[in-house]
């Protein structure tokens, strides 16, 4: 741990990170585009029409990755918030701040695609099913995070306040994930898990995974871009900025 932590701290300083972020963002952006194309091709062309659901099921290729990301990004966000509280590292807090919007976006996508899917399958756009509700709560948590953020004038105070909020809100993620287990609901349970063999067609699985990778690299790219912007604003006065400026 000690060994790794040293260089971790080197990149934990905005100064050394800033130069790194630019090219990384570009690389991940391109990757995201390619993966998305591949995933959509698999999902819309290669994958066969589903027996009962017809074409409608193809939403899964967007819905599931989005839903996964919505939860995953929150976990990552909470992690960085913890880091910023413990090590008092500015960059960690900024990362969390940069992650929030992407998380919100994916949550919205999961909600929208989900309810669009719900119409043909369940005959309703919305039901107060546990998973849907908890996903909606996740959206509100993202909103709350951002709202608190821009309600506080002092940036460092905002960092720490939002960090506390994010950590508290993290309890919602397991609720979302296991909601299908805890309440017998409309929503179907996890059919992909690391422990048991997947219960769906290999090709579908492949499509979903490729799309998930696309979502990942997209999130990383966007986050890095936002991070650069935030650093630009936050570290205005700092000496190293002037150095970079020249």
């Amino acid at each position: 741990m000690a060994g790794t932590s040293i260089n971790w701290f080197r990149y934990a300083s905005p100064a050394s990170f800033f130069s790194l972020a630019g090219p990384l963002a570009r690389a991940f952006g391109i990757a995201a585009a390619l993966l998305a194309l591949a995933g959509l091709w698999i999902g819309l062309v290669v994958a066969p029409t589903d027996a009962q659901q017809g074409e409608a099921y193809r939403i899964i290729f967007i819905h599931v990755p989005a839903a996964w990301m919505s939860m995953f990004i929150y976990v990552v966000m909470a992690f960085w918030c913890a880091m910023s509280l413990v090590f008092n590292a500015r960059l960690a807090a900024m990362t969390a701040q940069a992650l929030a919007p992407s998380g919100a976006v994916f949550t919205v996508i999961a909600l929208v695609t989900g309810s669009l899917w719900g119409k043909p399958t369940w005959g309703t756009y919305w039901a107060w099913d546990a998973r849907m509700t908890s996903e909606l709560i996740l959206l509100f948590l993202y909103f709350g995070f951002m709202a608190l953020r821009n309600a506080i004038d002092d940036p460092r105070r905002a960092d720490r306040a939002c960090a506390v909020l994010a950590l508290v809100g993290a309890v919602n993620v397991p609720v979302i994930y296991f909601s299908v287990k805890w309440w017998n609901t409309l929503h179907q349970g996890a059919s992909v898990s690391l422990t048991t063999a997947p219960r769906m067609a290999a090709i579908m699985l492949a499509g979903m995974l490729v799309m998930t990778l696309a979502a990942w690299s997209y999130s990383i790219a966007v986050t890095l871009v936002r991070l650069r912007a935030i650093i630009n604003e936050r570290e205005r006065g700092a000496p190293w900025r002037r150095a970079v400026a020249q």
Partner: protein
Amino acid sequence: MAPMDSAIARPAPSGGAWAGMRWALVRDLRLALRSRAELGVLLLFYVIVVALFPLGVGPDPSLLRTMGPGVLWVTALMTSMLALPRLFAGDFADGSLEQIALSPYPLPALIAGKIAAHWASTGLPLAAASPWLGVQFGLSTGELEVLALGLLMGTPTLSLLGAIGAALTLGVRGSGALVSLLVLPLCVPVLIFGAGAVDAVRDAVSTNAHFSWLGAMLLASAVGAPLATAAAVRIALD
């Protein structure tokens, strides 16, 4: 002045946490009773709520029965929301919060005391009144028991979670609605299990699951919330 000329450096008071918690609890309860206004308003509020629904829904008993628990639970949620701003804002404005943060007692303990007082003036009365209110909705005895028990176990969690939001929004622009935005989502699970328990009784299903969840959430928040709130308070004072 004789006592003053003794040593000016005192040891930290003994029996830290509990004494601190008691101090905050007693003091806030006393203050709450001083300004009976808010208390009365809260009580009136949920009497109105409960009185209103039968009016809105009409006398159909089966309907009333099914919605009774949900209404009472949401009312509990709203009343604790109503009182949240008062939890820290006053102390923050008049400088008491600084003194509390500087006290030799552990801050989380003091905060826990304040939360307990908040609960005693919002959740507890509702839980106590719930059997009577539930009768208005024609709940059966079994349902009433579960309802009251659920409220007793659930409302403290609401206060605990609410405290975090209240502390986070201290001295923040437009904190009024922001608190609710931060807190209400976190409270939803409590609501689900609490109301669910009563439905379970109606459907003659075991309520163990619900209560164990309520208990788990109460424990978790009882441990976590004071710490998180204390952190938030220190941040607000920084």
